[in-house]
């Protein structure tokens, strides 16, 4: 009896706690932290100019998905979510997202929304997610270090032989200066983003067309691994890379890294936060010299049954307006609408254009098992990148990863 009373009292108190935050016209929305300022600024701009409010909760990016899934299980999910687009198929397949098809198709600029995002947001011909932020991977180099190493600071390398050679020259500059960087300590997300394009450009992929067979072990992948292994062996990669699980993904910001693959977000970050670093940007060469990229970023999704879906749509329309697109681009997110991209980027750093160009050659894998295959810190791709590049037995690394990927795919069927 006492306990009941206590619980009642406790829940009453909780209720008071909670009711201060939620009112009818406030949209609860989650984003992953560490994503950059573009989205926060967009929300600030929206809240300043509208009566309805968006309330943001930043969740550590490595825990966002599990937290959202737990919240759904407990019936406490937020209204909307900025969801890493690669998770979109899995969430849609689970039937947890609101169908946006009719509304989306009625948008006058629907056809010019980032195609990769719309594709990932589509499940069984229905649209559950729409692009919120677009991010492509690009190659960047530090112009000052190029100059010091006697290289032409305005000429982007176009092959990996060239990148390796440049890396060695930059490494020769001294103790703390390194030629190349990547997060090789089992960061699946980082490596699919920065490393996989090496093989994509050459026409190889890690999954068969129908997504049912793992095809990791290709000559192209072996070649790509070879380039990275050689650079590690030559000592042009900082030793910390071997255990970096993504926390130091943007090491180039310390000014001591000659070259690395990074995201277009980073262009904004570098320009605004590290103006002292002079860098160039170009498309990532593949192992055969063509170019490729990974189209990443977030989709905007609405939790199924959210009573504030209308408000969510309002907000999204604002994000797609010229004003909204400009706010986001200013803080590093690429335009999601190709029809006004040129206008949005007009006054911004010209290097952003490279990120937009990358969209044309970019790929995004479509698989319900993306998390287990690629992104999980303990998945086959994450451990493969570490084992193949830093380990002693490349063949075993290929064999293990290939086998584990296949078993994950088979188990899910």
């Amino acid at each position: 009896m006492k306990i009941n009373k206590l619980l009642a009292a406790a829940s009453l108190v909780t209720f008071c706690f909670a009711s201060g935050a939620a009112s009818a016209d406030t949209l609860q929305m989650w984003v992953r932290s560490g994503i950059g300022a573009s989205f926060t600024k967009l929300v600030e701009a929206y809240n300043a100019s509208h009566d309805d409010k968006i309330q943001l909760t930043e969740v550590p990016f490595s825990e966002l998905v599990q937290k959202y899934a737990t919240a759904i299980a407990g019936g406490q999910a937020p209204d909307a979510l900025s969801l890493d687009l690669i998770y979109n198929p899995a969430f849609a397949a689970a039937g947890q997202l609101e169908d946006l098809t009719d509304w989306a198709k009625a948008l006058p600029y629907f056809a010019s929304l980032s195609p990769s995002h719309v594709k990932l947001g589509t499940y069984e011909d229905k649209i559950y997610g729409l692009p919120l932020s677009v991010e492509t991977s690009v190659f960047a180099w530090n112009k000052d270090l190029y100059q010091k190493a006697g290289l032409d600071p305005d000429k982007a390398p176009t092959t990996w032989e060239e990148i390796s050679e440049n890396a060695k020259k930059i490494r020769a500059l001294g103790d703390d200066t390194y030629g190349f960087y990547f997060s090789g300590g089992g960061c699946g997300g980082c490596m699919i983003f920065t490393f996989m394009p090496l093989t994509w450009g050459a026409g190889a992929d890690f999954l068969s067309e129908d997504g049912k067979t793992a095809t990791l072990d290709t000559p192209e992948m072996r070649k790509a691994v070879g380039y990275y292994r050689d650079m590690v062996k030559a000592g042009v990669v900082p030793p910390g890379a071997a255990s970096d699980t993504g926390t130091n993904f943007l090491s180039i910001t310390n000014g001591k890294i000659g070259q690395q693959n990074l995201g277009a977000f980073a262009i904004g970050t570098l320009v605004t936060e590290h103006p002292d670093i002079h860098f160039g940007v170009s498309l990532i060469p593949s192992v055969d010299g063509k170019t490729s990229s990974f189209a990443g970023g977030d989709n905007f999704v609405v939790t199924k049954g959210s009573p504030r879906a209308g408000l969510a749509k309002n907000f999204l329309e604002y994000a797609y307006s010229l004003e909204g697109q400009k706010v986001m681009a200013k803080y590093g997110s690429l335009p999601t609408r190709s029809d006004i991209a040129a206008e949005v980027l007009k006054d911004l750093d010209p290097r952003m254009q490279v990120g937009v160009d990358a969209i044309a050659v970019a790929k995004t894998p479509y698989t319900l098992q993306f998390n287990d295959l690629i992104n999980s810190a303990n998945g086959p791709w994450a451990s493969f990148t570490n084992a193949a590049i830093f380990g002693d037995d490349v063949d075993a690394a290929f064999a293990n990863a290939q086998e584990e990927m296949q078993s994950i795919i088979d188990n899910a069927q």
Partner: protein
Amino acid sequence: MTTKKEARARRALFSAGGYHGTGLLLAIFFLAPFAITILSSFRHGTEARLPPIPPWPTTGVSLDAYRSLDSFGAGVWQHTLNSAAVAIGTALLTVIVSLLAGYGFSRYRFLFKNALFVLIIATLMIPFQSILTPLFIILARLGLNNSLIGLTLVYVTLQLPFSVFMMRNAFDAVPKEIEEAARIDGARDFRLLVRVLLPLVLPGIVTVAIFAFLNSWNEFLAALVLLSDNSKFTLPILISAVRAGRLGAIDWGAVQAGVTVMSVPCLFVFLLLQRYYMRGLMAGAVK
């Protein structure tokens, strides 16, 4: 005679030197990581990336690291306040619940007494990470999800095995005669507990309280899963956001500041109450 005495004195001196030398080395090993971290956290932001050699600010004391820490989440004050509320609440509730339970288990006989005691102790053996989802759903049913109170109740439950064990032993150690004497004086049950026994088991209470405080202050995973509001997150979640890095780079200065903010209150509470705490811990362990 004299030489023998001198030799003995020399030996004593030598052994004292050896003893204190060892003690000093041990103290350094166990304390240096704290000292280095705390001192390093006051270095300038520009130094944060560099190894702490020497491990103190060389270019003047700066609060850069704390400012950077404050820019994560809802600000370091808010999260510290949340953590303090949860930790103090957990400590209080744990003391009350385990005091009563310890008294009950020590002084009364009832059906299934041993089985119930083992049941409480068994809580220790479940990796609570694995019952988080059911916990979340139960809390949601009670309307206690995303609330610091719900989190506190979960923490109290996690503390119970140790605390009840501790308090039962503490009551067991109180001589029955004291109780009998008080009973003759007319003190009964609850009054007896509060007036007579409470002071006698105080070290046990302090131990239980400190353990509850420290563990709930430091807990990460349950807090992360059970809370879903920026403004309600506790310190460890803030720290994990710092660890995850921002804009693709980890700010070691903020990490040091975070570790400092997390550990200094623990060290302080411990130093303040360590006499009781050690006594309680040792009394509990004797059984």
